[in-house]
Each structure stands twice: as structure tokens, then as C-alpha cells.
């Protein structure tokens, strides 16, 4: 057993931390208040030449081959600064890029993954529909074969990066009878394809600087060579991608948790009540202790699971456990952080208020807590416990 980051992983963490401190933290409040997606895009432009947008991908596709460990380190550090930025990069790498890595052939990886890894293009992943969220298998977007093309018709909803992406991995129904058992196909769609349009959705509780959009497909013609993997393999690609992305989402939760713990410790030492710093009170100390204990658990399961993934182990159960535990732990942690900050924590000028709002969606997107529990239980009942 070895619980130490390699020298490269340590250098990566130090570099991203510095990048976050200098380039992201100073903008995070403004990004949130102004719903300023352009600032986030500016950060991506600065992150690209450093190689940050291709961390887990092989070097031949423009990546750095630093695996899931490297990717988890990236998302943890980004989330200390700004959840909107972290989610934008997460959807770009962990959903769009990973789908192409998992399902794509050589030509597709060369044509589509490489520009994503290098940050020349931005990626999105379109699975959710107005009538298909947790029940992704019931998606309706029609994909009809016609000559050398597929014609896509339908709507995707709440798609991260939807209206800023150049390359979108779209999951459509190619065979209504087979559905998830061979009837769903993944397509790579270029955003400038005629018939495609995206409408920004502005009114959200958090992640206000992340571009969330409704995508509309009206007779969008996609060449057959843009089918990802085999026809009918879409649902498998979508689920394998989510296995991996759930883990990185959990990694992002660690960063936010550590950041608000730091804020809470600093605040509790400075804030005087009843003639002493509130850090002296056991009620505050117990909250800080609980937050710290949960952060240690989050860190322990996420990096262990990332290591497993990099060893080639499949992680449907572990990824779901990480996602479930970390998203729920983060909500308990930001809640305590606001409580420690008192009235200050309720005010929009304090970053802890932003972290509180940004945290909530982690229990919903990329599979709700309930779906994670179903995945875990199904896996345990099928394969046995330990």
C-alpha cells in the first residue's frame, strides 16, 4: 500500500493550486454574480496551453496521460476556487472527452478528442431530456438512418456547456423497440451543423457561470462515421462515461469542502462573541470536527477509487459510493460552514454563500443520490457484498 502522490502528481497539484489562486479565485464572485460564462471561457483559454484540459487522455491524443488520479487532483483544486469553472471543465473532459475515448475509433479520437484535449474545441455531453433524467433509458431523441447519414430530431435539456460547445456527444434513439438494450446510439455532433440550436438557461440556484442549455435538433444530419462505437452501443458508452465522471464529481466535492472548512476555521478564530473568538465554543468546535472527519473520508475513498480505476478495475459500485457519499457530505459541510458564519454566511458578498448554493446540484446531476443507491444495491445484490 502506498498513499503518497507521485512527484508528478504533487507538481500537478501545486501548479493547479497556484493557477486557481491567481487566475480563478479573484474572479469567482464576479462569475457568480454576473452569470459570467465569458470569464469562465477565458479561464479555459489560459488552462489549455498548460495541458489542463487533457489530463487523463493519452499523449497521442494531446493529453498528459495522468490518469484518473491526475484528473481527480485537477477537479479537487479547481473546486476550491469556482464550481462553475470546475463543472465546465468536468463536462468537457469527463463527459464529452471520456465518451469519445471510451467509444471512439482512431479517426474519431484524432479528429474530435485531440482538439478537446488541447482545448482548441469545447465539448458537451447530451443525455438528459425533458422526459428522461434519472430514467435515461427512456430518452426520445429520434435518430433515423437515411443513406450515409442519421437524422436527429428532438430536445436535450440542462446540458452543461450546451451553447458554448463545438463538439457534442448526443445520445439518440436509433431503435425504439430495443431502447437501452441496443436501441440507443451515441453521435458526435458538430455545433455548426444545420438544424442544431442551443438556448441558454439562466435561472439556476447555483453554478451561475456554467453554461447550461436546452439543445434543439431539427433534422440535424450527422454522417454515419460520427456514430460513436457501434450502432446501439450508446447506452453502454453513456453509463461507462458516468462511472468515471461520478468519481471526478466526488473529487470536486472534496475541494469545495476543504475550502469552506478553511473559511470556517479562519472566521471562527476572528469572530468575537461573548468576549471570545467563537472557535473557543464547543458547539463550533464540534461542527469543525465533523466537517474535518467527513473531508478525511471523502479524500480516502476518492483517491482509493481513482487509483483502482487507473489499475484498470471497473468501478460502478465504488464510483457510485464516492458520488453518493461526497455529494451528501459536501451538503452537510457547507450547511455547517454557513451556520458558523452566522448572518455573514447568508449574505451574498461572502463566498460561503456561493459554495452553499453551488453544492446542492451535486446530489442531483450525473445521477441523483437515489440512483446511486440503486446502482450500489444492485451491484451488491448481484455480485455479493465483500
Amino acid at each position, binding site marked *: 500500500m502506498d498513499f503518497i502522490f507521485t*512527484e*508528478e502528481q*504533487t*507538481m*500537478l497539484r*501545486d*501548479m493547479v493550486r*497556484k*493557477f486557481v489562486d491567481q487566475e480563478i479565485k479573484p474572479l469567482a464572485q464576479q462569475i457568480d454574480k454576473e452569470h459570467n460564462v465569458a470569464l469562465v471561457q477565458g479561464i479555459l483559454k489560459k488552462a489549455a*496551453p*498548460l*495541458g*489542463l484540459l*487533457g*489530463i487523463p487522455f493519452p499523449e497521442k491524443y494531446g493529453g*498528459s*496521460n*495522468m490518469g484518473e488520479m491526475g484528473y481527480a487532483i485537477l477537479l479537487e483544486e479547481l473546486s476550491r476556487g469556482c464550481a462553475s469553472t470546475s463543472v465546465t471543465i468536468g463536462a468537457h473532459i469527463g463527459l464529452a472527452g471520456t465518451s469519445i475515448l471510451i467509444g471512439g475509433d482512431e479517426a474519431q479520437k484524432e479528429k474530435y478528442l485531440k482538439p478537446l484535449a488541447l482545448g482548441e474545441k469545447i465539448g458537451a455531453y447530451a443525455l438528459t431530456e425533458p422526459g428522461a433524467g434519472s430514467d435515461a433509458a427512456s430518452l426520445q431523441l429520434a435518430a433515423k438512418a437515411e443513406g450515409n447519414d442519421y437524422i436527429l430530431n428532438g430536445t436535450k435539456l440542462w446540458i452543461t456547456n450546451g451553447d458554448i460547445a463545438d463538439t457534442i456527444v448526443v445520445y439518440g434513439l436509433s431503435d425504439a423497440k430495443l431502447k437501452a438494450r441496443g436501441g440507443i446510439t451515441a453521435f458526435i455532433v458538430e455545433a455548426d451543423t444545420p438544424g442544431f440550436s442551443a438556448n441558454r438557461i439562466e435561472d439556476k440556484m447555483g453554478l451561475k457561470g456554467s453554461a447550461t442549455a436546452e439543445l434543439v435538433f431539427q433534422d440535424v444530419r450527422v454522417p454515419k462515421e460520427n456514430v460513436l462505437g457501434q450502432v446501439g452501443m450508446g447506452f453502454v458508452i453513456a453509463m461507462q462515461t458516468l462511472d468515471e465522471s461520478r468519481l471526478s464529481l466526488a473529487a470536486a466535492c472534496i475541494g469545495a469542502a476543504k475550502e469552506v472548512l478553511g473559511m470556517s476555521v479562519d472566521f471562527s478564530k476572528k469572530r468575537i462573541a461573548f468576549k471570545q473568538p467563537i472557535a473557543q465554543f464547543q458547539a463550533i468546535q464540534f461542527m469543525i470536527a465533523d466537517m474535518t472527519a467527513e473531508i478525511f473520508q471523502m479524500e480516502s475513498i476518492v483517491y482509493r477509487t481513482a487509483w483502482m480505476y487507473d489499475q484498470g478495475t471497473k468501478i460502478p459500485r465504488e464510483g457510485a459510493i464516492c458520488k453518493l457519499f461526497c455529494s451528501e457530505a459536501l451538503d452537510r459541510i457547507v450547511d455547517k460552514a454557513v451556520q458558523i458564519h452566522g448572518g455573514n454566511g447568508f449574505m451574498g458578498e461572502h463566498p460561503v454563500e456561493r459554495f452553499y448554493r453551488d453544492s446542492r446540484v451535486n446530489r442531483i446531476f450525473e445521477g441523483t443520490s437515489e440512483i446511486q443507491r440503486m446502482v450500489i444495491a444492485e451491484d451488491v445484490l448481484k455480485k455479493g457484498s465483500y
Partner: protein
Amino acid sequence: MNIAVCIKQVPATESKIRPSADGKDIDRTGLSFVVNPYDEFGLEEALKIKEQVGKGTVTVISIGEDKTIEALRTCLAVGADQAIHIKDPALSGSDTHAIALVLTAALQKENYDIIFFGKQAIDNDSGAVGIHVAELMNLPHVAVINKLEVSPDDKKAVAHRQIEGGTEVINIDLPAIFTCQKELNVPRYASLPGIMKAKQKPMTIYSLNDLNIATDAVGAEKAMITLDQLSPPEKRTAGTALEGNAGEAVTALVRLLHEEAKIF
């Protein structure tokens, strides 16, 4: 154009520094360490000059224990071509004079056109080693520069430094030594390809013997200055609010200034 950058590994700026139990050093447990920020300006300037000239080598040099290799490796990830790590148990307790002697010996093994230092290291803030090395190497130097231009023939340079009420512009022949101030440039980040390549770049390790320096010429025994005591800043006590109307408060204030603070 061969450029050397002398760097020091120091506690990270946000660290909470505590004196060690004996008061002779800082308590290093739990601290994270970084490349001294002023040295990063030196490295950035070296890389810029190399890019501008289109050829040459950037060498980073540091003295320290095994851990120092992390700082050197970070500089390699940022873009330096090679590193020199000087380590020897006999160096423990050395003062700035001994450090300058050792660096001079290492620097004299090659012909460098420019040698950069940070204007000071943010741990001890001595600001002494760079100019001390210049003296020992008999090289011209400009300290605390915030702008540098190298002539196209690589033989001369113009250095700018901020002085009271203005800027001093100094023409200097190369080789020369410069110590760097923060307005000099904006240091770049290490890149992922840089991080992955860092381990493959040359890292030379020198002992005192390799540099022909006797072990008894340096270290705590030979130090010309000794550290007596490190202590944390005194804790500030809470202020006192004076009660009553303005007249009463002023009377009370004057009494306190006279009797308690004893300023008159």
C-alpha cells in the same frame, strides 16, 4: 547564452510559521514548501531571454537537503534545462557567507553570461547571497532590478531599478549578476508536458568535495553570524474603550498616555 538561476526552497507564503522548541529554527512539521517567489522572477527572466535569443541553456542551482530536489524539479517543469543540487551534511548551520562561497564554487564550474538571484528569500529576508556571490566572483551586479534588456550581441545589458522618486537605468557588461524584484515579469506556470518531462532533465548533485571545499570551511562552526533566538510576534491585547463625554474621555486618555503608556 548560458544563464544560471540560484533558487531557494522556502516555506509557502500562506504558512503559519512557529519557532521550534529550542527557538533556533522554525518548526517544519506540516509546512509546505515552494520556490522562493523572488527567485521565480529570475527563472522567468532567464527563460524569456533564452527564448528571445533563440539558443542557450538555463541552469537552476540550489543548496539544501534532499527535499530541495522538489523545488529544482518544479523549475525544470516550468522550463529550465538542467538543475544542480548541492547537498552536504557539513553545510548544516551555514551562514550567508558560506552559502555564497559554495554557490560561487558551483557557478565557477561553468561559464554563465547571466546569473539571477531573487532580491531576497522570503524566509530569512537577508537579501545578502546574490551580491555576496558577485563580490566573490568579481562580477558586476545590479540588485533589485525590475526591468532588463540584453543587447543583441549578448555582451551588454541595461538594467532598471526603482529608487526613491524615480528609476535608475544601469548599463552593464556581461557576464553579470542580477537580483530580481517582482515587477520584472509575470512568472509562467509549470505545464503538464513540462511536469512529465521534468524527471528526464539532467540533475547534477554536488557534495562539498565535488566543489573542492573543505567541510570545515562551512557550517555552524564557521558561521560569522549566529542565530540567537526566534520568537513569534507579541500577541496584541484588546483595546480599551473610554467611557463618558468627550471631555471626560480626553482627560482619561491623557492620564493613560502619561501613566500607562508613559509617552510623556
